[in-house]
């Protein structure tokens, strides 16, 4: 028997276990024993050859069933496609015709720490209280709305990084309020399976017909049938609800259903209009609250932008709550609690190990728990040493850890590491360290609010000769290249955002001159398209370091910060401006076809003089266009309408990205034009409000921004 284990450390720790060899046979034959997959596992663990004893609790996520056991595959596959094991709510999701499924799940879920310590009450939640309240308020509002009028169903979009406790939060709150959860989770065939089994309880042939349906149709059915279900039950009583207390009470019971949708059918990522139609339809005739839970990420892969464009959110009054990563202090508390509860099974790890795990998880509870389990399990105790050794000195350096009240920061470890240049500094942290990506807002902010360190603490760099002394700067604490890398943006794009915002951070014209020069350099560096791909990273580096070096206010680590106040960051106007310009040229040529001038002549000579001489233009469109093209906004102060505020969670707009890609002349890029959208996370709203409140003491604000680095959770509520 050979058992190979492959660990994939990404969002969750997913252990893919490929079972092959001898085990294949008994499984395919003894179908009746499948009611407990766990016991089967245990039985194979009992064989002396097996090395998988310790990994057994880790058994989670993807499983590849052995080939040749078709009935087994049928059962496992639906859950195998799921991203993470999720305890099915026994009340809402009725058991399938095959009892094996639920038993398999319980076998897995009790093994995983993250499943076993699933929060049961509000107090168990590691999510920040205010966020919990926010969601709870929304649910309350729903029930109030519900009682008053049943015009349209409230819809909530809950976003947040993976493992922030979104689902747990909703579950706990719903349970406490006595709401029933109808959950869409996983892929279509599973849902169809569930649905059929719950609704019609027919035999396999029915299931097959459902599986042949498109994902979107299944999703549509799920939503609308759930709704119809409600409607059928409700329309009867509603007519008589005024008089009959019985029907009223019945209604009250029926009301308490929430539909939770996670893991959207992936067809919608390609064609979001289908999804929009379904949502619109639901909004029109749906009754019960609908919650979408979507993990956000800083590229468009999660598709929030596409699935929930701003206009749709507005049109359908979709509320949006965005969660933050769990604060490290909370996470440490939680991990300590769980570790002590589990102390019987494995020796509880030291405080420093827990801190390392908490910090490296980047605010992802699930990942932290998985790491804890993995690192401290019986057989993997040797990992503990690996984990603890590099961690200890680092944390001590960082303000003697949490006991003294200093805040833990997610970003702190990496930075000190890179400062120390220790060859295996990262090695301990690779255990469960998430590859953290940062949002555009943060990356621009990090460079603009750069910090310098005390030169005494760092390796002394070679001194500059006398005549260059004015170029001497204290060592940087930010690594611009790392920021650029983590932002995962094209350097072109990042540079243009920096360019849009750098001016306000400089105070003298000399600094401006130099910084502007560097931006010009950066652009001409990446001018040659043949070498652009190689040079782009240098170009953004030149721009960032150029700005940082030109900022003569902050040459020393202790140089006083100028009282800038809160400076909002803006979106780069270049892309929209150039788009607008090309549109104008197009329409100019379209409207004045008869004149057949070159666009330059048309725009610089013909149109202005047409406006002056005002001859009878043939069509009103031409007149309007000429007027439009010849009026310039003359307001001396910056008109706010021109500047689009950059929000925290804004991601790259596809259309802009595309432009920069097209400019690179790289072929093979299909042009899916997506409207420019941005997310107005509730988080950024809070932030703006806060800054307005704090405008009296701006310095504090600035400090906070700089300290904030990665943990928004801490910042927002301190």
């Amino acid at each position: 028997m050979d058992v190979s284990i492959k660990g994939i450390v990404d969002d969750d720790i997913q252990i893919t276990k490929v079972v092959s060899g001898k085990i294949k046979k008994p499984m395919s034959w003894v179908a009746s024993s499948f009611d407990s997959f766990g016991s089967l596992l245990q039985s194979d663990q009992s064989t002396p050859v097996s090395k998988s004893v310790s990994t057994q609790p880790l058994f989670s996520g993807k499983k590849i069933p052995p080939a040749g056991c078709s009935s087994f595959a049928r059962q496992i596959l639906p859950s195998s496609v799921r991203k993470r094991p999720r305890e099915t709510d026994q009340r809402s999701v009725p058991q399938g015709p095959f009892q094996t499924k639920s038993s398999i799940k319980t076998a897995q879920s009790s093994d995983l720490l993250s499943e076993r310590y699933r929060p049961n009450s509000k107090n168990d939640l590691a999510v920040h209280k205010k966020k919990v309240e926010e969601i709870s308020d929304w649910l309350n509002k729903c029930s109030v709305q519900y009682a008053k009028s049943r015009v349209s169903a409230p819809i909530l979009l809950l976003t947040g990084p993976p493992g922030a406790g979104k689902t747990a939060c909703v579950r706990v709150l719903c349970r406490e309020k006595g709401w029933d959860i109808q959950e869409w989770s996983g892929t279509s065939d599973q849902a169809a399976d569930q649905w059929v089994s719950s609704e019609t309880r027919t035999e396999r042939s029915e299931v097959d017909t459902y599986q042949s349906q498109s994902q979107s149709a299944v999703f549509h059915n799920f939503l609308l049938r759930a709704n119809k279900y409600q409607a059928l039950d409700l329309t009867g009583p509603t007519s008589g609800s005024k008089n009959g207390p019985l029907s009223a009470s019945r209604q009250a019971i029926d009301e308490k259903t929430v539909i939770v949708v996670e893991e959207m059918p992936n067809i919608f990522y390609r064609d979001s209009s289908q999804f929009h139609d379904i949502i619109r339809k639901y909004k029109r005739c749906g009754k019960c609250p609908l919650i979408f839970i979507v993990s956000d990420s800083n590229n468009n892969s999660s598709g929030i932008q596409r699935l929930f464009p701003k206009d749709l959110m507005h049109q359908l009054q979709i509320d949006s709550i965005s969660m933050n990563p769990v604060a490290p202090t909370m996470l440490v508390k939680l991990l300590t609690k769980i570790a002590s509860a589990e102390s019987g099974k494995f020796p509880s790890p030291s405080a420093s190990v827990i801190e390392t795990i908490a910090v490296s998880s980047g605010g992802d509870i699930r990942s932290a728990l998985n790491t804890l389990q993995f690192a401290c399990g019986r057989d993997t105790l040797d990992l503990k040493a690996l984990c603890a050794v590099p961690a200890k000195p680092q944390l001590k350096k960082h303000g003697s850890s949490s006991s003294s009240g200093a805040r833990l920061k997610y970003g702190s470890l990496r930075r000190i590491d890179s400062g120390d240049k220790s060859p295996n500094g990262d090695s301990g942290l690779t255990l469960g360290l998430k590859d953290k990506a940062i949002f555009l807002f943060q990356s621009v902010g990090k460079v603009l609010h750069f910090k310098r360190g005390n030169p005494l603490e760092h390796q002394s760099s070679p001194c500059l000769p006398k005549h260059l002394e004015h170029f001497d700067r204290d060592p940087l604490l930010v690594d611009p290249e790392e920021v650029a890398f983590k932002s995962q943006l094209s350097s072109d794009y990042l540079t243009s955002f920096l360019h849009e915002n750098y001016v306000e951070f400089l105070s003298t014209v000399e600094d401006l001159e130099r910084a502007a020069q560097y931006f010009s350099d950066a652009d001409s560096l990446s001018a040659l398209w043949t070498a652009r791909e190689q040079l782009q990273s240098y170009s953004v580096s030149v721009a960032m370091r150029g700005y940082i070096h030109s900022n003569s206010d902050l040459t020393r680590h202790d140089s006083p910060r100028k009282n800038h106040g809160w400076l909002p960051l803006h979106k780069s106007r270049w892309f929209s401006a150039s788009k607008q310009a090309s549109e104008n040229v197009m329409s100019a040529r379209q409207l004045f076809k008869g004149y057949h001038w070159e666009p330059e002549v048309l725009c610089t000579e013909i149109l202005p003089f047409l406006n002056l001489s005002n001859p009878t233009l043939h069509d009103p469109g031409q007149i309007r266009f000429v007027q439009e093209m010849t009026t310039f906004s003359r307001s001396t102060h910056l008109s706010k309408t021109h500047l689009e505020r950059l929000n925290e969670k804004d991601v790259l707009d596809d259309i802009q990205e595309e432009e920069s890609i097209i400019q690179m002349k790289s072929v093979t890029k299909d042009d899916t034009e997506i409207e420019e959208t941005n997310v107005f996370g509730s988080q950024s709203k809070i932030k703006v409000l806060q800054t307005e409140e704090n405008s009296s003491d701006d310095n504090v604000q600035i400090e906070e921004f700089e300290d904030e680095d990665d943990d928004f959770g801490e910042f927002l509520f301190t």
Partner: protein
Amino acid sequence: MSLWVDKYRPTTLGKLDYHKDQAAHLRKLVEGGDFPHLLVYGPSGAGKKTRIMCTLRELYGPGVEKLRIEQSQFTTPSNKKLDISTISSNYHIEVNPSDVGHNDRVVIQELIKNVAQVNQLDTSTQKNFKVVVLTEVDRLSKEAQHALRRTMEKYMATCRLILCCNSTSKVIPAIRSRCLGLRVAAPSVDEICQILTSVCKKEGLTLPREMAEKVAEKSGRNLRRALLMCEACRVQQYPFNPEREVSEPDWEVYLRETATMIAQQQSPKRLLEVRGRLYELLTHCIPPDVIMKGLLRELVQVCDGQMKPEVVQNAAYYEHRLQQGQKAIYHLEAFVAKFMAIYKRFLEEGIADIF
């Protein structure tokens, strides 16, 4: 109602008002039966297009004036659809490939191939080649120019190219050497005055001599602009009053205001305001090099004698960058910042000298 510029455009080589000897050369060229590829260059408003159309008429007769506007579609290798409008007669096709931006290479290759693959139907009475007129060749990307050079040779048998641009400096030498260069110089102030007067006479108006001179002066020896200005003046006030200011395009006024703003104050805040205005100009389709030129023209006027070379040198430097780079705003802004720094230093020195 068409503009005077269109209305009184000469249609034959014989009717041209200036550079008559050049017209005679062109006629001889056409009479020879064949002619090489042409590269017509010269400043804006000098009459390049007029001359090209006259030559075509000389070649093919009045049939060339029956123009039609067509939309052609091309597909790039990356499956992007490009729409471009072409103006064509039975004998020639005119296209401005720079309309499609950096995809111009595809247009150049496909279009010329399409045209050149079909021979002239009636070679006995007509020339056995067609003409492709490409405008704004200096705005073509380098790739497109290289594509052009191969295409030019390949289809020499069935088509001739007439390239039209403002300056040959942006045309690669390989293309320059394959064409007969033909420079159309800007008309002199006197010539413009004559034309203005004759046009006004045809319109039944009397144009005072001083007024004509003033317009010609103001137009910067750009005939098209002179005619447009004259027409605008006519609309605003008639009879012409030489005392009155000749009105200018709005964007020039706007640009001048921007330059004044730069000279007034040198601070980061002002730079932001200027940036807003630059964006405004860019969105109104004013080409960045025109903006740069306009800014320099205005800014040099406020400069002291010693400062001028430095400012102009920097302008040239950033204009060059502008051509190389992608994002014009970086370079425009860098120039503005540079000027601010130079000017501020100058002012501070001036104050130091006083005390």
